[in-house]
């Protein structure tokens, strides 16, 4: 009790003393749609229930500290919609009170939310959906994306492979929608950067083969032509983790398993990231996942824009975030900005195994006339998004 009072009076002193202080409230909503998790082979890796939410909470804590010096009061309301509940009803309720949203939901749910009449003029951050279409044909002016797309992830990995001259590839894909989308992105990336996917096979996911991996995979991969690296598109982490050391040829695995490109990895340590990892660990009592990072980056982007504009108006913030002056220090070695043609956050992306960072693309030598970060994912000339014009 005493401590709280002391802190409050300290804050009061700063507020009185500092010039340019404006008291502003910045209410942000975290909105999550729970989804059914696909069953995977191993029972050992149970994903935490609070992925995303903890990232938003850390972002709030980071913003609040900065805000305390400027008279900016941040809050994050948390709404988690259980399976089977009415998503749009929940979304309407949130939109009635909030104009800034961080959303952790599948692409179609996000899109339905963004198209609500109540969502017009809101500032919505997509912190989880990787679908390419959301950034392209079905892009929406009120949606920015802190989560990278499948294409960005595929490009990050492919740049790394090509920079090592490991250009002969084979690919094994799963049968779920996310696997298909990521596989398609990997194919496109291979074409874009001059690698070859020499053969592909689809893994029939119907059998539980924990006990006979050693017999199944060598046979399954025996006919592959010679290759440097085996790609795997298995986003749920079902069979992919078992590929390494069980294929016919001893080749590294990359993609959804092995060396994996992502928005974030708990193996990122440079660029001050050790501090972010530590702050996150203290907040969540676990390591930071990609969706945590994307939610954190969304809340921090709002914070950075509020700090620089002294405004909580979603239009002002959106303009600033998409403008030239915005930059977020986001622990990946380069200032984070947003693409003004589709609202996608530009970012370096770690390629990492579960134990070590492999690389942090964009790789050296992949050049671009304005930002090397735009070598990852679809670039301005190729975009199908028109909502930002």
């Amino acid at each position, binding site marked *: 009790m005493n401590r709280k009072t002391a802190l409050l009076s300290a804050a009061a002193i700063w507020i009185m003393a500092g010039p340019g202080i404006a008291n502003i409230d910045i209410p942000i909503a975290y909105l999550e749609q729970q989804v059914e998790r696909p069953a995977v082979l191993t029972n050992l890796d149970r994903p935490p229930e609070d992925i995303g939410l903890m990232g938003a909470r850390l972002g709030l804590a980071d913003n609040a500290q900065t805000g305390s*010096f400027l008279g900016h009061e941040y809050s994050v309301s948390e709404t988690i919609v259980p399976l089977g509940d009415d998503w749009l009803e929940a979304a309407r309720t949130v939109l009635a009170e909030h104009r800034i949203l961080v959303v952790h939901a599948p692409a179609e749910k996000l899109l339905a939310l963004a198209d609500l009449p109540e969502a017009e003029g809101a500032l919505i951050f997509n912190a989880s959906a990787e679908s390419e279409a959301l950034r392209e044909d079905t892009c929406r002016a009120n949606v920015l994306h802190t989560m990278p797309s499948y294409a960005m992830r595929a490009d990050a990995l492919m740049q790394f492979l090509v920079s090592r001259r490991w250009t002969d590839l084979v690919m094994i894909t799963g049968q779920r929608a996310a696997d298909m989308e990521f596989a398609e992105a990997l194919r496109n990336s291979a074409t874009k950067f001059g690698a070859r996917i020499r053969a592909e096979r689809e893994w029939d996911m119907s059998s539980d083969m924990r006990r006979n991996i050693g017999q199944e995979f060598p046979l399954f991969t025996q006919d592959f032509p010679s290759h440097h690296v085996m790609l795997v598109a298995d986003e749920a982490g079902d069979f992919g983790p078992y590929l390494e050391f069980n294929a016919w040829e001893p080749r590294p695995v990359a993609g959804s398993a092995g060396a994996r490109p992502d928005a974030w990895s708990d193996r990122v340590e440079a660029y*001050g990231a050790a*501090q972010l990892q530590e702050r996150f660990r203290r907040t969540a009592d676990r390591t930071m996942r990609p969706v945590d990072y994307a939610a954190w980056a969304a809340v921090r982007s709002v914070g950075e824009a509020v700090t*620089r504009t002294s405004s909580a108006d979603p239009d002002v913030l959106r303009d600033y975030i998409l403008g030239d002056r915005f930059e977020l*220090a986001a622990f990946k070695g380069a*200032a984070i900005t947003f693409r003004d043609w589709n609202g996608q956050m530009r970012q370096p992306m770690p390629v990492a195994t579960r134990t070590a960072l492999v690389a942090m693309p964009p790789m050296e030598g992949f050049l671009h006339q304005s930002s090397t*970060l735009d070598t990852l994912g679809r670039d301005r000339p190729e975009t199908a998004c028109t909502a930002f014009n």
Partner: protein
Amino acid sequence: MIRTTVSALALMALSAPALAQEVWISNERDQTVSIIDVQTMEVVDTIEVGARPRGIMFSHDYSVAYLCASDDDTIQVIDVETREILHNLPSGENPETFVLHPDGRHIWISNEDDNITSVLDVEERRIVAQIPVGIEPEGKAINHAGTIAITTSETTNMAHWIDTETHEIFNNSLVGSRPRDAEFTTDDKRLFVSAEIGGGLHVFDTETFEEIVEIRFEIPDVHPHDIQPVGFRLTEDMTRAYVALGPANRIAVVDIENYEVIKYHQVGRRVWHMAMSNDETLLFTTNGVSGDVTVIDLVRQEPIKTIQVGRFPWGAAYRPADS
């Protein structure tokens, strides 16, 4: 006769020899300090220190070195003659950088993980104040008058102006992303702050707290992302700033009268910090990734030597020869 001479020599050998000019380098990943003899430009000693050594500096009389042993949560005091750790001082958690007040008695410390600036009394060996600041406090500076302390906070993107008497923040200046280092000019009229991700060197008027200018850097064939100003030093006569540019692997030479970049010196990989000789003729830069120190001759204006040190050299401090 002969006997007397011998014993005199023996006495001389026993008493400490005059120390040469040295530069002390903290090696973040090796838990060591490398000591470079400036005359020979070689590492003459490597001493074992605490975990994750980063900030390093000497007392005003150069009798001891202070070292942030970040992961041991302490400031170590090292005797410069014997190279022995005399004692550990309280520092608050995870001390990263620090600055010694002109009174020679108070060290202002950035506690990186706790969003705190701690003030340590080295005589009483206790923390006398803890000041809440922004997230990831980093750069530290105190003006020559000893009245104002600066803490930069990397995630809050501010320079906090702290009254050294009352220990209260009396102003906050927004700077570019990820502010790192701070230093006042000799006349205390200007404050310089580097912004690693923002990519600029910000100059503030210490009367109005207004930004005078932001100095930007451009290097042919180096991507702007890689130009990340971190440590820097200002010359006594207020004509030059030497700025470490991180992964650009360069030291920028800036004319701080006209705010123009004059030259870039190529150094080792990922240059963090630097030490300057007291006569301002030599600069020693810590190159984190290449694990070495580049020596730049500031008169001839060129790098003259690379000295291998430990893994991830971070901080550097210069001490003159004993007279």
